[in-house]
């Protein structure tokens, strides 16, 4: 997935340079310096930068900003959903940092054609670092034809050093707004609990009647899973 700079076309580098400009704009506004541009037919049609601090909405990443611009623009031009989907399937995203899990999922939902990013995102990355959402769903289509996750082509490591140095400068100054990067060193324990209403257990006709129903109007079953395993199916037997 990673590629070296010498392999990149001049166009790719030029677009990434524009994304870095956006990241610098973010930095000037005391935002985490990440920027992006969206390209269709060799032309930049939207750009975006982080606005999480300004909006106090931590989901306002550069990608989301650029996507919103496009959606608004295309709808103003009267494009239908199908036409917009068609448009997205011809778009390239150039972003200075690997899209996070949220953005990668959003890009998959929109069905973007290709993503080129600068540095990897070891903490949140959704294109290979933590999850690999760009690969789409490996499962075949379900029988009733529900579309599964769409994949997209993804290339990393383009002008990564520039992207990293921006981020490093920002964090060395000290992020005035967030607590990014200093949160949790403790290992994560997964907590998963099922709240079972007593009503539900009664109607299911189980051994529930033997319980002190008046004492425990709720059965709280804690399944404390210390795991980071995915797709772990949890079942409660015979409550």
């Amino acid at each position, binding site marked *: 997935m990673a590629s070296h700079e010498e392999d990149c076309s001049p166009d790719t580098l030029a677009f990434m340079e524009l994304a870095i400009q956006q990241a610098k704009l973010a930095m000037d*506004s005391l935002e985490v310096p990440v920027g992006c541009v969206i390209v269709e037919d060799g032309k930049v049609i939207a750009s975006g930068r982080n606005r999480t601090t*300004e*909006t*106090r*909405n*931590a989901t306002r990443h550069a990608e989301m900003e650029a*996507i919103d611009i496009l*959606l608004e623009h295309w*709808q103003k031009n009267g494009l*239908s*959903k*199908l036409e*917009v*989907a068609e448009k997205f399937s011809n778009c390239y995203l150039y972003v200075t940092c690997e899209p*996070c*899990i*949220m953005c990668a*999922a959003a890009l998959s*939902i*929109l*069905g973007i054609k290709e993503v080129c990013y600068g540095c990897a995102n070891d*903490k*949140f990355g959704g294109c290979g670092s*933590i*999850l690999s959402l760009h690969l789409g769903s490996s499962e075949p289509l*379900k029988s009733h034809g*529900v*579309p599964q*996750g769409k994949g997209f082509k993804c290339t990393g490591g383009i002008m990564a050093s520039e992207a990293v140095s921006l981020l490093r400068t920002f964090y060395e100054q000290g992020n005035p707004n967030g607590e*990014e990067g200093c*949160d*949790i060193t*403790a*290992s*994560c*324990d997964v*907590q*998963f*609990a099922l*709240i079972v*209403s*007593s*009503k*539900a257990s009664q109607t299911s006709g189980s*051994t529930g009647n033997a*319980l002190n129903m008046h004492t425990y*109007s*709720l059965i*709280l079953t*804690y399944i*404390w*899973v*210390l*795991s*980071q*395993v*995915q797709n*772990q199916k*949890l079942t*409660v037997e015979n409550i």
Partner: protein
Amino acid sequence: MTQIEIEIEIEIGGKSSTFQTSLPYRPTNNNPLVTLLYQSPHSYILLCLYLCFYYSIQYIHSIFIFHKLIFCVSLYACIVNVFASIIDPKLANTLIRLLNQIAPLENLRHVKRIRKKQLEGGKTELLVILCLASENDSHLDTMQHDVRELFNSYQLSAFITKVCKFPASSKEEWEEQCKLWPTSYHPPTYNIDGITGFNEEDSQSVFSFMRFAVELAKSGDGLVTNAAVIVDPSVKKVIASARDEICSWNIPTNNQTSSFKQPDTCISQSNSNRIIAHDTLPSNGSTSKLKQLCTGASCLYPWRWSEQELYMPNSSCWHPLRHAAIVAIECSAARDRQLFPDLGDNEDKSFELDHMHSSTSSPAKRQNLENVEDTEKLDTLTEGCHSVAARPYLCTGYDIYLVWEPCTMCAMALVHQRIRRIFYAFPNPNAGALGSVHRLQGEKSLNHHYAVFRVLLPEEVLSVEL
């Protein structure tokens, strides 16, 4: 397959019994699943404890609380031997300094080096850990060389004692540990509220907020969508609420009003628990109809947005990513900006001035500034219950109630926004990211972790009453 031995202590109403058992340990899987079935003599509940071991089997050393039943799962491997010695209190400082230099307890930072023991007659005795002892050979010769020198020069008398190898992960566990040898306890930075139980009041508010979310999900024109309700659990107040808005989102005013609306059943009288659960069970509505209705929930079929033309023919404004959770986050951010407008406006030239106002958050000082427009605006907007000091950092400390398990995008958005707990009613087998397809709450690398709870409701609650 190897077996590991564990000791289980069960305490019911003061009576405690201990038994030992072996459990299978599957080293092939990084996270071996150990299933422990125990039939409680008290209530005939078959309780399944699924312990997924993390890294290694030794990592689990926890106390599970199940109402009044305490399950103490302790592992022999969690205890290490150390050399300890009784010392003269006058020498304590010198010895500890020396010992920390020559034999620091690197991997036992949670273990206190010194222990004070109360003797009869009000006397105290000081014990100090000298160094680690080997597992099998407890002879003094195995002691580290320079510790031995120290030991000889101060003429100490060493003995073997046991300490806990891993830091406690709960207060209860810590209390247990301290019986062995005192340790320090730092409550985890991630939230584990609820894991030790919901009391009746908490359970009630969970149910009423979930019911609020379900009602919101059904409030559309026949189409059930996902709904999200962000709640500040400390005051049991709705911060923001939203439905899916992928088809039409031209309703900002509607959002505004619903953002501050309280569910009327918020804090109801005790003993109404079952009634609330019961109320939400209208029994009409067939399953096939439900299935059709549920396709309105965008988290269930996030990739289907381009096909959904038929559901909302008159939509002028649409957005494939405006899932309920995303919209709710936006609402709460908007509320934050509205209630606490003087912070974070970086471009504003009066930033510094505003900042000064914000630092004068005590009521007395604010009185002096009552002519200042900003301050007045702030006071009226805060409805008298929010001070600037109470300004939240994103959604820290807030809970969210979702009818369906969120998709990957929404689940990650909730990580970004620092939601404390997620409650959802129905799983999302297609795209769910809290266990169905992915499990974000278990991704160790993320910088925030929420606790996830599923509130079991019958599917019939979704049927729209006509």
